[in-house]
């Protein structure tokens, strides 16, 4: 009875009593959600263009951040280090296409998935071998001051991070919608064979999406790294991005954003109001449960393409 009270009445009372605090929770959830979306975006880009579920995306975030921090430690100015890291991520895309993807055309999905897990292991060892495994601070000069907006305390860093995330999404949307390359990408995503037959070079497309995903990983790595330090656990945010991904739909860029926002808010609100009743630390699984409930009603995610099956 007490437990029932704790999970039904008390949270609602808590929300009603202090709605400014509730607003704070929701907004911090939204801001975290944007960060999740950043990681989920990398997954979506690659899945959309090649049907590969790239498990290495989380490690790519870590790898990009490690490279950036390592370069900055050499005394290279930040803007140059950023450019160099972008170059490294593009080079990585070329290498991955040349060594792995090229040999796995027409293999079942699970085999491609496996190869990206192998890649994740390799990059993890490689990154830490070169740049070391200890926690590093990443300071890119974004101010971190608390601001008072309508009675709610907000962190300026979170807002700037969200703005950067939002503009990245806008740029990607324009890229997909209005450039010849974007059109080619959408064509490949639609139908490999048809795209090949009208002369779209599949290999160039793959290198491009993996490069773009690498750059998205860099942005995510910078944001998360500046927030919580560059360390191995950075790659674990991939596990945060996965429910976002399936909630929004594996093939949808807007889905990754909306999914991120839903998961971000849902998990913050659940942790703050329902967490104490069940012992806390529910952030780890709550997102997955939420995604699973959504999937019951829409098995392809909120914005995913409808899966049409024929015999």
């Amino acid at each position, binding site marked *: 009875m007490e437990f029932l009270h704790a999970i039904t009445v008390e949270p609602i009372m808590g929300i009603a009593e202090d709605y400014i605090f509730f607003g704070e929770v929701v907004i911090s959830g939204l801001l975290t959600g944007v960060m999740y979306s950043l990681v989920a975006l990398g997954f979506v880009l690659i899945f959309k263009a090649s049907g590969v579920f790239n498990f290495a995306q989380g490690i790519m975030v870590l790898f990009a951040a490690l490279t950036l921090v390592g370069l900055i430690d050499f005394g290279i100015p930040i803007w140059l280090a950023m450019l160099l890291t972008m170059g490294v991520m593009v080079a990585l895309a070329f290498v991955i296409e040349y060594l792995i993807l090229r040999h796995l055309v027409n293999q079942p999905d699970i085999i491609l998935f496996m190869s990206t897990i192998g890649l994740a292991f390799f990059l993890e060892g490689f990154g830490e071998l070169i740049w070391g495994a200890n926690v590093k601070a990443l300071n890119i000069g974004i101010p971190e001051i608390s601001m008072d907006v309508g009675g709610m305390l907000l962190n300026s860093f979170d807002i700037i991070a969200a703005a950067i995330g939002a503009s990245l999404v806008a740029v990607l949307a324009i890229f997909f919608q209005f450039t010849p390359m974007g059109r080619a990408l959408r064509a490949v995503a639609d139908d490999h064979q048809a795209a090949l037959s009208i002369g779209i070079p599949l290999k160039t497309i793959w290198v491009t999406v993996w490069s773009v995903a690498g750059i998205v990983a860099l942005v995510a790595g910078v944001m998360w790294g500046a927030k919580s330090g560059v360390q191995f656990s950075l790659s674990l945010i991939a596990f945060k991005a996965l429910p976002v991904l399936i909630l929004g739909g594996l093939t949808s860029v807007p889905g990754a954003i909306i999914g991120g926002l839903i998961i971000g808010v849902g998990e913050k609100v659940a942790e703050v109001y329902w967490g104490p009743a069940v012992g806390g630390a529910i952030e780890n699984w709550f997102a*997955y449960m939420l995604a699973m409930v959504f999937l019951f009603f829409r098995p392809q995610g909120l914005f995913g393409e409808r899966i049409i099956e024929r015999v």
Partner: protein
Amino acid sequence: MFYRETGQFKTNYNADQAIFPIAQDRWFVTAVILIAYSIVPFYATEYLLQAVLIPMLIFTIAALGLNILTGYAGLLSLGTGAFMAMGAYSAYKITTAFPELNIIIVFLLSGVSAALVGIMFGIPSLRIKGFYLAVATFAAQFFLLWMFNKVAWWVNYSPSGTITAPPREMFGHMMTGPTATPETRYFLVLTFCVVFAFIAKNLVRGRIGRQWMAIRDMDIAAEIIGIRLLPNKLLAFAISSFYCGVAGALLIFSYLGSAETEAFDIAVSFDVLFMVIIGGLGSILGSFLGAAFIWLTPIILTNVPHLVGLEIATDVQKHIEIMIFGSLIVIFVIFEPAGLARLWSIGKEKLRRWPFPY
């Protein structure tokens, strides 16, 4: 020359439908089992039994379970670690609540409890498919481990949050606990592994297995020819989780001795998935080969530098190990996507014509 079925005529249906219709296969399997029971435990060092063979056999059971689900029924699951944890924690609860109960029965019951949980998390599989399902099974992984960490009832309110295998006796021998000899534990694990492998082999070549394979190849077509999806998918989840649950219980009781939830974290789920894919999806033999490959590779990688006299700092070696392991997986997947079991069958084909191939 040695591996030919020429002249082995079948005169009745029973012989034709035997598990191993070719005599050489029968001899080979019998010989391996005999060697595993009679020669290995008496000549193997304690290190070999304790650190190599026992965990390898336990992971083989888990791989068999996942292979039933992923390889035969085509349902990708990443929650193996959680189902193993369910088995381990249930075994601990059952055996501490009923100390008199035979330890074999405890293991089987813990498998049943894992199977029930497996069915629960398998329900979405009717609507959710492919990678969506794989990610959804992460829910089991994170939720169950969180539950074992937070609900003190599972660890009998011990403040450390660990479960420890209590000493249990059978046939006058200590089966589990600190005083059990490696040999006894090896026999226990080996017996489970052999029996479970035979059950799995028979399951997948019978009606149930064929239904699973039809669902794997195309579930809509399977539905049209009259295979009921929900019961069959749930059965696959149940049996797979049963295997994983028993494997998890054995992992604590026969190998680790005591453990926290970390012993069953996401890395375990991935390791078992590697075993299944590297070994060969949809192959019982593949589960054995895959488990051996994935369990032995890190051990070999750790020991090789010492053997050749190379001294590397431990953290550097750890990183190189991960790199080599990752590259091996990629190389394997590129060169033999169908797994070790396929290599084995190619080898058998070659052996059939050896030494005069045409």
